[in-house]
Structure formats: structure tokens, C-alpha cells
């Protein structure tokens, strides 16, 4: 991975069925920082179409649910939250 890639890619954490789809506990997406959560969703579905088969998924930014209009900052902890099933 060259220096430019390091600057523009972001590690997205994956749990549950998202981990299964990603094949690892994280996945890497390009050009996430500076964009919106909605743009992240679009990139994710392009790179991993299997996320489209889920009932839904949310995105967490720094341990809080993010809105689609939120801007992701470089250094944020970003996590795919598939449908929860606690209790």
C-alpha cells in the first residue's frame, strides 16, 4: 500500500453478519473521509453487494449511530452495524 492509498483509505470495522460478508473483522474502503455516511453506504454496496441482501444496516461513527448526512472525518472509528439481536 503506497502513501497515497494510506491517506485515502479507511478501515471499517465489521461485526456479526457484516464480518461474515467482509470475510474479516474489518474491510477497507477508499475515499471515505470527507464524505457523508450516505456516500460510504453507496461505496460499500458497490464493493460488497452482499450488504444489499440484509434487512438493513446502520453505520456507527465513534461509538454513536451516525445519520446519513454526517460527514466522516479521518481518524473516526467507523463500524457497520447490521440488524441487532441482543436480549
Amino acid at each position: 500500500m503506497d502513501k497515497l492509498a494510506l491517506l485515502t483509505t479507511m478501515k471499517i470495522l465489521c461485526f456479526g453478519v457484516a464480518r461474515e460478508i467482509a470475510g474479516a473483522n474489518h474491510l477497507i474502503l477508499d475515499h471515505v473521509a470527507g464524505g457523508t455516511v450516505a456516500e460510504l453506504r453507496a461505496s460499500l454496496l458497490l464493493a460488497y453487494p452482499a450488504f444489499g441482501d440484509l434487512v438493513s444496516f446502520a453505520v456507527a461513527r465513534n461509538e454513536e449511530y451516525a445519520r446519513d448526512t454526517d460527514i466522516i472525518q479521518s481518524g473516526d472509528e467507523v463500524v457497520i452495524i447490521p440488524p441487532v439481536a441482543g436480549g
Partner: protein
Amino acid sequence: MADPDPHIDILLSGEPLSLDHCRQFVSDPSCGGCCFFVGTIRDLNLGQTVTHLEFEAYAPMAVREMRKIAVAARAQFGLHAVALHHRTGDLAIGDTAVIVAVSSKHRQPAFEGCAFIIDELKQTVPIWKREFRGDGTHWLNARP
């Protein structure tokens, strides 16, 4: 880190949960009633035999969301104290997945607050359940 609110006890743990611990935490001389919900692993789901089950959590956010629910329940129902404990890891049939314990002066808010907490937990807390059933392995709620 100690819980900042002395009336709220949140736990996400790979070890068996203790109803007695939760009860002692919420009990208070000012309270006329405690309500508890104990969620356990059923042997059947959607007509299929369940052999065991695994809970995975995004732990730091799960604990934050659990605490938010406890704070909201105390405010909305005037509860004295709330304990909310959830398991992670491998569970067998009959094992306890979750304990909700609340205390209040009167019983009606205790029932309502306890039901509110478990309903909210199932909606918002980032915990995932993988069931090992006769027909395979399933992440609950994930697919239509």
C-alpha cells in the same frame, strides 16, 4: 471505570450473569417493588431446534447504548435504580442472555420501565446473536 451514576449498573460479560447481584444493586428501603426480566436461550426458534448460540458485541458502543437506555428509563419512569447485564460468547439452552432489574417506589413504573428497557435493548444495542440450529447457522434478524 466505575459507573458515573450510582443508580445504574451496566455489564457486558463473557461470564454467567447473576440475578442476585442485580437484585442487591437495585434494592433500596425507599422502594416498594422490583421488577426483573431474565431472558434465556430457548430450545426452539422458528420451528427449528436450537443447539447453542453465540453473542457478539461491539463492546464499547454496546455499553454506551445500554447506559443511555438505563438513563432514559430512570428519567421517564422515575425509577430508583437500574441494572442491565448482557452476556457475550457461547451460550447453551437455558443460559441467561440478559437481566433487566429495576426498582421503584410503586410497582406500575417498575413493570413499565423494565419492559421499556428490554424493548429498547433489542432495538438499539449493537449485539448480535448467531443461532446454531438444525437447519444451519443464522445471524438473527439479519436477512429478510
